């Protein structure tokens, strides 16, 4: 999908959505951008509220029995999707108006084929369970993608950038997850 913007490109603010991030905005001058290999990004948009959001997750589900550090759980689809939806709702979006697009899930190396596929299947299943319509997908294959998404208007663009493995930096989220405060 092409992006035809009435706003001069120089005024657009580009925000990178790194692994584990879930960002939402209604700012017409914001563009979310990310690069995906086997990771998946889901773009959500509420056209009535003019709110959009993008996440970027590494794996569909955390290992069931692993004693995973809570700070790293944002890398997993189930947490990432919830953070994304909550971020959207906080900015005035309504769950019933959400529409989705799915990107990524490529097979970047032999032996990692199931990761991308599992991520895609997870995103489809999650959105189906939440009754969120999927408007489009650019998924699977063997190439990395660059995705740009304007959250306020819901326009997205996805380009193939490389058939080489993407070097992805794992961002450690701020150590707030899992903290307990008893009143």
């Amino acid at each position, binding site marked *: 999908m092409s992006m035809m913007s009435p706003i001069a490109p120089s005024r657009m603010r580009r925000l990178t959505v790194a692994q584990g991030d879930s960002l939402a905005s209604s700012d017409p001058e914001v563009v979310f951008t990310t690069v995906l290999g086997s990771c998946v990004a889901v773009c959500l948009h509420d056209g009535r509220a003019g709110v959009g959001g993008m996440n970027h997750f590494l794996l569909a589900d*955390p290992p*069931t029995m692993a*004693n995973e*550090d*809570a700070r790293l*759980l*944002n890398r997993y689809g*189930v*947490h990432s999707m*919830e*953070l994304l939806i*909550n*971020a959207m*709702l*906080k900015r005035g979006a309504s*769950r019933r108006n959400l529409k989705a697009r799915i990107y990524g899930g490529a097979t970047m190396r032999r032996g990692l084929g199931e990761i991308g596929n599992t991520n895609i299947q997870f995103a489809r299943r999650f959105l189906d369970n939440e009754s969120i319509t999927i408007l489009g997908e650019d998924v699977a294959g063997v190439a990395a993608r660059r995705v740009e998404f304007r959250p306020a208007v819901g326009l997205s663009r996805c380009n193939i950038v490389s058939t080489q493995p993407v070097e992805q930096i794992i961002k450690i989220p701020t150590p*707030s*997850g*899992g*903290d*307990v*405060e*008893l*009143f």
Partner: protein
Amino acid sequence: MRMLLRAALTEQGFTVFEAEDGVDALEKFESATPDLVITDINMPRMDGFGLIEALRSGDIQAGLPILVLTTEASDEKKARARSAGATGWIVKPFDREKLGAAIRRVLH
């Protein structure tokens, strides 16, 4: 998320009743008498604040521990939950051990 929470709590020996949102939770109270409530803030129909206020307005649930499990981290919302009668505040994504420890602490 509810699935993960159920798995984490069941694994630690707790019996779990699930509800879709605040309204569903209040309806569940007609047939269940839980020892503790864990609620999100952002929910359809009735949010977590509404649920806490509704539970605290009845005599029966006056002493029921209510933990808020949410992605929200703002002091303002935390203060609102506390004022409404919440017992504790846990920021998602949750840590199984910390959550279990917090539950055991408020139950004893």
